[in-house]
């Protein structure tokens, strides 16, 4: 059963909270991982790996650079989840 947009945002919020310590309610679609959520390029790799496991999706390294915001990541997962 594929995850809904709300489920993906909630899941990403938990992941970002775990990795960067940002409160889950601050993780919104328009937020930039780097500028707003204290996720640097190394931590972004952790976010991606955790998201891949959670949502059964593969996010190749070349695509990671396009995932600037929570909205970008959510859209990508919605379109590619297994």
């Amino acid at each position, binding site marked *: 059963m594929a995850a809904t947009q709300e489920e993906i945002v909630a899941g990403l919020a938990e992941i970002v909270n*775990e990795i960067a310590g940002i409160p889950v309610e601050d993780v919104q679609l328009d937020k930039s991982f780097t500028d707003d959520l204290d996720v640097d390029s190394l*931590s972004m790799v952790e976010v991606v790996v955790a998201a891949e496991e959670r949502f059964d999706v593969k996010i190749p390294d070349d695509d990671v650079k396009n995932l600037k915001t929570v909205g970008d990541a959510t859209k990508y997962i919605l379109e590619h989840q297994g």
Partner: protein
Amino acid sequence: MNATNRTVVVTGIGATTPLGGDSASTWEGLLAGRSGVRPLDDERFADLPVRMAATAAVEPDQVLPRPVARKLDRSAQFALIAAREAWADAGYTGPAGEDTAEDGSALIDPDRLGTVIASGIGGVTTLLDQYDVLKEKGVRRVSPHTVPMLMPNGPSANVGLEVGAQAGVHTPVSACASGAEAIGYAVEMIRTGRADVVVAGGTEAAIHPLPIVAFANMMAMSKNNDEPEKASRPYDTARDGFVLGEGAGVVILESAEHAAKRGAKVYCEVLGQGLSADSHHIAQPEPTGRGIAAAVQNLLDATDLKPAELVHLNAHATSTPQGDVAEIKALRRVLGDDVDHIAISGTKSMTGHLLGGAGGIETVATVLALYHRQAPPTINVENLDDEVDADIVRDEPRKLPEGTIAAINNSFGFGGHNVVLAFRTA
């Protein structure tokens, strides 16, 4: 700004050790003669020849927020905790450049601030743990933080980021002399005019089955698993090797002018360092103490330390049969009868041996001994080795004399590195 032979003082101290989570509780533990050595109950250690260590009294991840701790090797966690304490103790309330005096000027400019924090073997537990992750969970799960966590300069770099150091961030590596060498390097940074303030010290976090087995197979470690608190016993006839410890000790070193200008509290002066190398064996101490004697002589030549004012030594004294005696022989060779008025403390009897962290926490102990005029005891000396021809402080702390007094701190490392640091009351 260029200057040579500027006076360097200690204005802040911090530590997290097997005796306590800060410098005050560590000092209290040292004076009380408490052992920080504990059994290693985790099953990973069950079949090892050594099943004890001087583990940190306070787990670092209970002090640091999780998002910070998870990106730092344990050795960097210890260093950051000790550095934060030292930084605040020195009277700084924020990173360089952001911290201002009453007139609005910066208390310290970023380009006049350095860090020199060393460790003996760096992020060894990160390296080993991530290899386990690779084997058990696969390529994708190896942490992207692995390299910054395992690199030996990680603690110095992370502390540098914390305080905003831009004059230089360094990490000398010389096994168990690393922490002392870091402090000596920091003194030189200030002396030569490269910096006004340097955060300096040592850290280590190597309590893991592989380093323990590796040291044990060198016949370097005590195997007195039945009585862990008695295993580290420098100068005692029954000593059978060192006990591994973990933690960090950090000091804030500052040019005397800089400290005076901002009205900082001064613990003591750092007179300088004496260095040498044994050129004898990769791991065995040179039995006559020739290299150590050369380091002490180099210290006397390089500083205005007078042997008559030397009243305290925080000895390297790791509790190995050869090393403890070689150190005392070396002192006799250079200082002669002046050894008689030196109260010698082997604090590794309580903290265990923190390898690269030793020079850090023992500098903190030496600074506090001068500041409070008390030498900590050496515990577990039940039968003093006949070859130890010196005044070992045993069981109870020793009051040090009034007036101007000086102390030295010895650190020696595998590879034949000898570092002697000297301090004098301000």
